[in-house]
């Protein structure tokens, strides 16, 4: 089985976010980057399925060279080879076009990625890629088993859980508890440097969006304590200040 796992390169969850270029770009200075946490789950399950089925696993990233340490970490965790599409993605559509282009050439049986990235959190790339390839996609996948050509998936739906079966090929957006995150081991780290990392140029895409302005959420205000005896004040404040009633 040929598996493709797509990973994002995102700021560590504890990073302090600031912007540059008139608030149109993330300020990467001093920010620690990591493999997107949801992608990390996809990768972990991908590695398990590769081992179970005796298949191959390619890891793909659409982004610039500064993501290579994270790509090599994916190789250390167990991917066989890697592809980096050398471009700063403009939006989800751009990324999806690049992934679909590679997938068309390589005919993967299974394309895994996180349910969403944790930077822009659009959560649409899996759907777009599947559409472009004319195959099905499911998200968020919390359990994934494969036997032959049949895939069993469990996912969360509004107010409950759905278990379904589907046939390969598929595109899946993953989340916990699909697998436990894997920590690269020493052997993996040492073999990562010998595994191929291919850099390819992007296919051209019409620019559909352009960020105009980013802003941070307003800082949390101070907490106002209202004595239990003054319920009237509380209601008034909820109406006039918090505007939630």
């Amino acid at each position, binding site marked *: 089985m040929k598996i493709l796992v797509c990973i994002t390169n995102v700021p560590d969850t504890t990073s302090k976010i600031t912007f540059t270029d008139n608030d149109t770009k993330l300020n990467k200075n001093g920010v620690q980057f990591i493999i997107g946490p949801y992608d990390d789950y996809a990768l972990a399950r991908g590695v398990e399925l590769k081992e179970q089925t005796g298949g191959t696993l390619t890891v793909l990233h659409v982004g610039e060279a500064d993501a290579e340490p994270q790509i090599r970490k994916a190789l250390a965790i167990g991917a066989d080879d890697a592809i980096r599409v050398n471009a700063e993605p403009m939006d989800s559509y751009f990324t999806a076009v690049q992934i679909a282009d590679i997938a068309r050439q390589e005919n993967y049986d299974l394309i895994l990625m996180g349910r969403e990235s944790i930077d822009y959190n659009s959560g649409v790339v899996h759907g777009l890629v599947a559409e472009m390839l004319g195959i099905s996609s499911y998200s968020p996948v919390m359990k994934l088993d494969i036997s032959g050509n049949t895939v069993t998936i469990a996912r969360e739906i509004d107010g409950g859980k759905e278990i379904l079966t589907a046939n390969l090929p598929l595109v899946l957006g993953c989340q916990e508890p699909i697998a436990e995150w894997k920590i*690269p081991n020493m052997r993996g780290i040492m073999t990562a440097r010998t595994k191929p990392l291919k850099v390819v140029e992007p296919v051209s895409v019409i620019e559909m969006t352009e960020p105009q302005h980013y802003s941070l959420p307003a800082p949390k205000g101070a907490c106002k304590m209202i004595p239990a005896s003054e319920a009237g004040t509380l209601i008034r404040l909820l109406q006039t200040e918090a505007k939630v009633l």
Partner: protein
Amino acid sequence: MAVAEANKIFERSSIRGGEFLIKETQASQIFIPEEFNEEQQMIAATCREFLAKEIWPRLDEIDHAKSPELIASLMDKAGELGLLGTAVPEEYGGFGMNFNTSMLVAEATGAGNSFSVALSAHTGIGTLPILYYGNEEQKSKYLPKLASGEWKAAYCLTEPDSGSDANSAKTKARLSGDGLHYIVNGQKMWITNGGFADVFIVFAKVEENGQTDKNLTAFIIDKTSGGITMNEPEHKMGIKGSDTRQIFFNDCEVPVENMLSERGNGFKIAVNILNIGRIKLAAAALGGAKKVAEQAINYANERKQFGTSIANFGAIKHKIAEMAVGMYATESAAYRVGQNIDDLITAFQAKGMSDSEAKLKALEELAIECAIMKVHGSEVLDFVVDEGVQIYGGMGFSADAPMDRAYRDSRINRIFEGTNEINRMLVVDMLLKRAMKGQLDLMGPAAAVGKEIMSIPDFGADEEETLFAKEKKVIRNLKKAVLMVAGAAVQKFMMKLSEEQEIIMSLADMVIEIYVAESVLLRVEKRIGLLGEERNALQKDLALVYLNRSVEKVNSAGRAAITSFAESDELNVMLMGLKRFTKIEPSNLKNARRRIADELIAKNNYTF
């Protein structure tokens, strides 16, 4: 490597142990942690992820465990990741990483409290005696299983009546009638990993015809040998989850082929292995300190009093900055030593030494620096946990908040691997011995300083305006200060100096401060060369604050030493000399500390 290149390493100034006191080192000659490559950083990240996933969620459980199974199973997990075999050569199932990488691993695994102690005892004092002194059969039998964690190791040197005075051990080994076994009898104490170890490195004295050897001999003893019993784990102040036992050997039969190295070579093995343990301990302490600093900074940001977060108070900023300065200093010096060890190993190998020989020789050469780092690293950690408790206030005293464990667990580092007193004495003792043997020319420079203090101070031309020119002059002067005091003390007491431990402690403090302050300065200079001045403004602050601290310490230690032996004219001349050699241009250190603290508070972490 060609012999010519090896010679270049040997010729490098201050590569030899203790030479930093009389020679100037170039920034380009030291390694700085910023130079670790991606693979090394990935290894460190693996260690940290392992702690975050397996250890930190279980710290309470580890400390309260009734049996050693939990900690042993966590060692197994570390073994699965390969973390127990980083320093073991590939042909014995390890990963053959160089020394400085194993330092980085020690740092990255150092923040795991009791677990870190178990891990470092296994990979360090447990495994290394076999790696460095074992014969081929012993290495191939034991190393692969120790590297994978299938077997766990303990190191049995200390006894109830033999601690710092390790060569006074009473455990005995006598050859069996058939000559096939040594029969070991004795009692060992404070043995880390004792409760679950499969392999014990045991130091004993061979007894023959009623005569007991003067020197120790080392043995590899399998748990299955029979005749081994042990007490329940010790009740301890800290590292409560680390399994520490008294172990009894009662007619324990050890096959003769399990003698390590030669009869009578045990003390040397013990000393050399502790040597490695010491520098690694500095790295591990640094890892622990960074974690505590992160927690303290987080807390300072969260905790509000008087309507603002306590991180906004100058007194708290001062603490945060002082923590940072200490850690940055340990880090700068520890990896400088680590690389020097690697370079010497390479050079000795090029001269035809075997792998183990070269490693031992390199470590022996830099034993002074290893002892310096043991003292510095453990004392910085103790400072950091103490101020950590203070920043947490009442919560610092709560057993439900993290500072309680950090504070208790830190303390052992000043005791084991040679107490800090023993290590301070070693620093001075080794320096003087090398000087006596003519390996290190301290006498010449000391005499020159003696002359200099009798002459009129040179108010001459200002230093040229190169980077850190003034600070380097300060360092040169600090070296003169210690040479002056040490030279006079040696002249005064000659062979009886060893009885003047107070003076030795002061001399050691001076030497330690000089090595570390110089390392910080060289690191920042190298960083500036790599990244430019603008991105090193805070690093310059760190170097300056540390240098000022060192000047003060050298001054007060020097004064304590001088006043305890010099009198009348000599006293005055030396005090004047000390004053001259501990001069530093005043600068606004409060502002420097604020800048350092503000950065860490904004980043909400230790980020240097």
